[in-house]
């Protein structure tokens, strides 16, 4: 039932009481951790949307100088895409009860996620070598800030990934680990989409 129709309910009415008494108390069919992740993604989206708004607002000032675009960023984007695909593979395999493929997908996802973070640090080094520091120009300041925040989110994801990988490695059944694998995959897809948005912003400005 949609939120709007629920808001129109008359909880004091006897006919409504008969319906309400059957309610199981949950709003969504998803388990609480899945709902929690989606709420968190909403908050993270609000955060990055605000950064993007500020970015666009700040770039209209005359001192804005576009940054060079290191080719390594394209490589990193591919790595993150593959990382996300790996976790998707793990998720699908968990649904099909293929334990070996779950492990493979999980490791591909995690290791490539880590590789992406290392790749981003290399991009930082390249830019610093070219003389683009955080204080050089607002464009470079934004680049460091946005990539750092995206990276911090990914590192947070890697902690969750490590816990999940440990559970899978220690032989817990797929029934018990499937939820965590799904959480990792959904989060990685979000980070991939977020990175594509941020990368596009950096490319086109």
């Amino acid at each position: 039932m949609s939120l709007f129709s629920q808001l129109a309910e008359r909880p004091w009415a006897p006919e409504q009481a008969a319906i309400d008494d059957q309610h199981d108390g949950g709003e969504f069919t998803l388990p609480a951790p899945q709902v929690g992740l989606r709420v968190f993604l909403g908050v993270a989206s609000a955060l990055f949307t605000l950064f993007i708004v500020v970015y666009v607002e700040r770039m209209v000032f005359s001192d804005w100088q576009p940054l060079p675009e290191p080719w390594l960023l394209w490589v990193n984007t591919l790595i993150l895409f593959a990382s996300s695909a790996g976790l998707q593979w793990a998720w699908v395999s968990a649904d099909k009860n293929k334990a070996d493929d779950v492990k493979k997908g999980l490791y591909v996802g995690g290791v490539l996620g880590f590789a992406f973070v290392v790749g981003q640090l290399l991009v930082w080094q390249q830019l610093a070598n070219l003389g683009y520091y955080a204080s050089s120009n607002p464009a470079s300041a934004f680049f460091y800030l946005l990539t750092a925040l995206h990276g911090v989110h990914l590192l947070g994801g890697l902690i969750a990934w490590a816990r999940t990988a440990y559970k899978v490695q220690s032989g817990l059944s797929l029934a018990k680990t499937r939820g965590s694998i799904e959480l990792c995959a959904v989060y990685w897809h979000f980070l991939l989409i977020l990175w594509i948005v941020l990368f596009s912003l950096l490319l086109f400005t």
Partner: protein
Amino acid sequence: MAYVAPAEAEVEEVELYHAKSFLTKYVFSQDAKVIAIQYSSVAIAIGLVGLVLSSLMRLQLGFPESFSFIEPSDYYQFITMHGMIMVVYLLTALFLGGFGNYLIPLMVGARDMVFPYVNMMSFWIYLLAVMILIASFFVEGGPTGAGWTLYPPQAILEGTPGSGGGIILMLVSLVFFIIGFTMGGLNYVVTVLQGRARGMTLMRMPLTIWGIFTATVLALLAFPALFVGGLMLLLDKVLQTSFFMPTILSLGEQLEYGGGSPILFQHLFWFFGHPEVYIVALPAFGIVSDLISVHARRHIFGYRMMVWALVGIGGISFIVWAHHMYVSGMNPWFGFFFATTTLIIAIPTALKVYNWVLTLWKGNIRFTIPMLFALGFIVTFVNGGITGLFLGNVAIDVPLSDTMFVVAHFHMVMGVSPLLVIFGAIYHWFPLMSGRMLNDTLGKVHFWVTFLGAYLIFLPMHYLGFLGVPRRYFEMGETNFIPASAQDLNAFITIVTVIVGAAQVLFFYNLFTSMKSGEVAEKNPWKAASLEWQTAEQPPGHGNFGAELPVVYRWAYAYGVPGAKDDFVPQNMHPDEVGEPGAHEASEE
């Protein structure tokens, strides 16, 4: 109509974490009730620091040049820290971290929050944020004196008190506060959405939960704006970036900054700052609705409209922020838009006030302490709200901006009003939390001194504002357009402030003595219908509801139900036990 029994519960019992040691039971606890007490204790403790700071400010304003230990820079630091502490570290933390943690699981019929470990982390990160804030008092140059709005460029430039370590620690503390709050906020939202008892539909939830829930959603969306602004300001300070810093000369020297936009920070700050008003107000609205209903023995008038108004106010609160910036300079159409939205938000707000009054109409009003505070809130909120309508209009705001009128307005509406609700809520739920009643006489003295005192402080302050007395001034000196009698009024306000501040000792005395030796509270002493009073034990034990989770059969406002055994019917009372057939069919008039 024949009663149809609900199907067997499909919701699995939550696997509760059971503490095994003193440390995990009372210190690193994952029980929302313990976390609530921890949040509340820290919030009240830091709030007392804020109270002392305000008294120091009032001493300076009432009796200038009498206190040699208060320098102008100290005064600015007192203002800044008082504002930030009260708004963020006291009110937000107490309403959401304190009342939210205690009441959400109990009122929706859950054993605990859905993510207890994350909930525990939320408190410890909040505590860390508070410690960092306190640390800023002890660094070289002291805490920041930039004003609670922390506007650049002055917030981070030399010459502003606390522009060294003070501002850095303030911003770092805010970043931690927001991270900690987000962890708690996820819990509050998901517990309300997914953790309710069988039969507890959204529209059967008490308005307290609706208020806390809506405020949490607001906070989850608004705090990121402060996070963005705070983090970028921190980088401007530490790494000399120029997100907000324009080309600027400081003390005769050209700084390395250039090109940034200070107004951009203002937009970010107030995009957070205005919803923040409602992050504090909405839980207060919800709580006061329940206090009025319980203590007037009457269902809340217009429950659905009350819910709609909460949600509506929450939504509109995101499109009024720039009314704080009329004097920053803006396109007149922009000002017109924000003035209009500001006036529009008064509609659902006024609707709530009417409904509170109509709930009282023909109610069996009991002048208990919680009811006194609730009534005090309604009057105060109307007063503070009406001056808000003045200030929402550009033409009236411009001359009144930066005067004591603004200070009086926001203290009435988001200082005194929510505090009255907090006191009312503590008097109301103390028996549940401790199993004992607070002393009634002490409570009444506390109420009247606080309520009347608040009016003696803030009503004259409006008048000072009309006279043109500016806010933020260390002292007036000789100012031709302000009569000398304004100083007498300032001295009067200061004396009352000290008395009202001292009267709070009564409250704490009452709290601590009653905890040990207060009259033992009977079960559900206020005869409330909501779930938190229907627990197996009072105070509720670990897991809240004993062996079986409650099943909900009605809303939380079944008072004066014809044919019922008592004048209230608990939410979880089986229809067969209510009394005469059909007695559970409480109807809204």
